């Protein structure tokens, strides 16, 4: 399935909006909004507010999160508010 990948070695500074999955293995600064799942891979750096259907954090995330399901992997770094529509 076609999706968006911010690979290792790529930096996006600004706003990303999408209707599909997003995988971040590189660096994102700004804002990240997806209708589907967001995956922040081990080694990735995200300094952004993140919104999506689901979120998996394996790397480093600094920012506020709004997602129905949030998973933070063992060893991941996370700093921010979580809103899971409770």
């Amino acid at each position, binding site marked *: 399935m076609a999706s*968006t990948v911010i*690979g290792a070695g790529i*930096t996006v500074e*600004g706003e990303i909006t*999408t209707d*599909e999955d*997003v995988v971040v293995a590189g660096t994102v600064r700004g804002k990240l909004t997806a209708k589907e799942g967001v995956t922040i891979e081990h080694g990735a750096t995200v300094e952004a507010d993140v919104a999506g259907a689901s979120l998996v954090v394996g790397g480093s995330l600094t920012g506020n999160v709004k997602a129905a399901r949030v998973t933070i992997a063992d060893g991941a770094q996370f700093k921010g508010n979580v809103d899971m529509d409770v």
Partner: protein
Amino acid sequence: MAAHPSVIGRTTRVRGRVTGEVDLDVQGFVDGEIAVGGDVTIDAHGMVGGGVRGRRLVVRGAVKGDLHGEEAIALEDGARVVGDVRAPRVAIAPGALVRGFVETGEGSGASGKASRAQPAARPAAAPPKVAPAAAKAHAGNSAAAAAGPRRPPPPVVPALKKAKGQIAKKKER
């Protein structure tokens, strides 16, 4: 790195800068500058509203901004580029549309300093623009030519005859 080739997907919109040292595939919309060390592919559905810089650029979509290729640029069928195109090697395929300055050769991709000495590049790059303009010019020059089918040479020939006539008259005097 190879496990994750970077892709801006079809429904994805990026507003801002995209930088890095690897390859990038743009299938969606990037409203900003792209500057990477690797190759950049702008897909048929891809649109970029800013300059694009990379090692080799392949464009099948739309770009509004300058293209800089360190090695080469290929504008393929369906490409629409409004901006300057600079690379050591530039290929413009049939079906690609360009409006801007095109410079090939060594140093063009890296420095970007243009010695605007290639006027031929412009008409060659934008044939669809030239054709209607030429047709209008012919229609204006001679009303008789407007009724008949397209005949680009005739307006040139009368112009030469007129010039010769004028010279002849001057000689008579």
